[in-house]
């Protein structure tokens, strides 16, 4: 039940939206991520977006992981 899965918003209509999970589309309530727009990624849990994925942070984490060894201290702050 606790699984939260990232997906991309493909439509927004007021508080509800449609999120694409790798081809599977579902109606999702967006009232907790009011700033999210079409094209943004959100983490969805039981039909609600609980967090917008920060693409800049996601890119940074991956860069640091790829630069191992030595780079990890940067994220641990």
């Amino acid at each position, binding site marked *: 039940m606790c699984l939260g899965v990232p997906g991309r918003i493909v439509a927004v209509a007021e508080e509800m939206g449609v999120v694409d999970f*790798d081809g599977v589309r579902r109606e999702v309530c967006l009232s907790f991520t009011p700033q999210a727009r079409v094209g943004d990624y959100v983490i969805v849990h039981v039909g609600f977006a609980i967090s917008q994925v920060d693409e800049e942070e996601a890119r940074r984490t991956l860069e640091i992981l790829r630069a191992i060894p030595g780079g*990890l201290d940067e994220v*641990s702050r």
Partner: protein
Amino acid sequence: MKYLDEYRDPVLARSLVDQIRAAATRPWSIMEVCGGQTHTIVRQGIDELIPVRMVHGPGCPVCVTPLEVIDRALAIAARPEVIFTSFGDMLRVPGSTSDLLSAKARGADVRVVYSPLDAVRLARTHPEREVVFFAVGFETTAPANAMAVIQAAAQRLTNFSMLVSHVLVPPAMVAIMESASVDAFLAAGHVCAVMGWTEYEPLAARYRTPIVVTGFEPLDLLEGILMAVRQLEEGRFEVTNQYARAVRRTGNTAAQDAMRRAFRVADQTWRGIGPIPASGLVLAPEFAAYDAVLRFGVDGVTATEHPGCIAGDILRGTRTPLECPSYGTACTPRRPLGAPMVSAEGTCAAYYSAGRTPSP
């Protein structure tokens, strides 16, 4: 899929494993709080690759929902006017004599919903029936369940109610810090996506225990473990955030607002663990009319656990499923004796589906 596949890269995983091996000079005990994390760790065999003792935490809402509450759900679902709605993984949790799936087979109208808003919709489209939603979960699920009752009230639905059994993570972590010997915690990333991590800062300082907010993919977990090990080796005990792409320090304030509107903090019993002060949520007084316990008068139900189940020790991290005499014999996912064998997030089910057996 974007934001999943990148965090499953086996080459990066191997280099993280090497880093952990190089960094850990002692067999530190690190507890992952959330059952979703347990699932990834056991399935990927992460705990078998690193010189760290991973202790599995109580973070499976299905597992910690008290037996009495399951029995109340069964009593309500048996009523002919009721459509009983629930997340799918609650259906096979054993109550003291039955489970919701068996009740459904006997004719009870039990329906699985994906979102709590589906239950509200059912109440609107079935005005002649009583629609009850089984509102269980941690802080991750609480805002969604809060929104369901807020919407039902806004729509003036009189045939909707909720059976609420909500648990809060930080008080359970305190209970574990007080009793068990865990050196560091991986905090549950999605709970923190909602709540942030400010609540953990005084805990890390008071118990001199590092807490690393961690995601759910293999690389997230390995990086979280490495961050915890580095703190332990350097004698630091801070809250740090591995899961920066999804979690901010103050969490999701819109979600917290909904929770605060619909719920109040209350004492809560955890199945297998017992009562923990201020560790749960109940409906706020203004939503008392939506409380299924009051509406159907099922308050008095009490129950006893199966004697062959050591779920309490499993949930506190003091024993593993391999130490349970019923594991894999009397207790399997098809015929679970205890809740940790039911949900994919339960430690016993995670061990079973990974094919783990006691070493002869």
